[in-house]
């Protein structure tokens, strides 16, 4: 099981029921493949930083889910086929989440062990070479 994050842009002129139906489809794919949807956020219509398919606005949706890699393939295929989706980005985040957790734990331990050394720690990060400049 891997955790993925998918941010995609839907045509801004799509109606709300249309979008909901499409999202239903996508979550259906995940559930069928034995995954689980962790998060489904609608950011709403935002301005695009550059025109995509001659549009300057887009309806952003963020989807976070855990599944096997096959589900991603299927979802991306649907994104490409569907004319609702202008653009999508898939990021695998389980490794990053793990790294962040590790990092957080280290921070907590450090602050517990030597609270006096806090200002020094800010200058020289743990596990990293100290910045030269």
């Amino acid at each position, binding site marked *: 099981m891997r955790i993925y994050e998918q941010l995609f842009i839907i045509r801004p002129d799509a109606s709300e029921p249309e979008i909901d139906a499409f999202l239903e489809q996508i979550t259906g794919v995940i559930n069928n493949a034995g995954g689980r949807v962790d998060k489904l956020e609608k950011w709403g219509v935002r301005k695009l930083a550059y025109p995509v398919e001659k549009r300057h606005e887009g309806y952003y949706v963020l989807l976070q889910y855990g599944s096997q890699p096959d589900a991603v393939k299927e979802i991306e295929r649907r994104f490409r086929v569907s004319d609702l989706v202008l653009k999508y980005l898939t990021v695998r985040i389980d490794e990053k989440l793990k790294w962040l957790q590790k990092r957080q734990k280290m921070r907590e331990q450090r602050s517990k062990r030597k609270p006096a050394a806090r200002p020094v720690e800010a200058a020289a990060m743990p596990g990293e070479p100290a910045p030269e*400049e």
Partner: protein
Amino acid sequence: MAEGKGGKPISASQQTTGTDKAVVTRRQYFRRKKVCRFCLEKIDDINYKDVKLLSAFITERGRIIPRRLSGVCAPHQRRLSNAIKQARNIALLPFTTR
């Protein structure tokens, strides 16, 4: 470390006095030591969705600000530039702006 002082050649008269970490560069003008903002504020997660944060590290034209200007440390600049590129891909940040 491989990088010297921001990659700029330092002439003999401007040599640092041993402790090159402190603010003791002998130049005519005083230059404040730049510190990596991510190290300072302890931002671990440089996320491509955080447009507000990322846009502080691109120029008006949409280019990534080099770390010799922004003072970001190498590990963080790497993460930062990756995040900016991801954000560009999904039209959160521009590739260029005229």
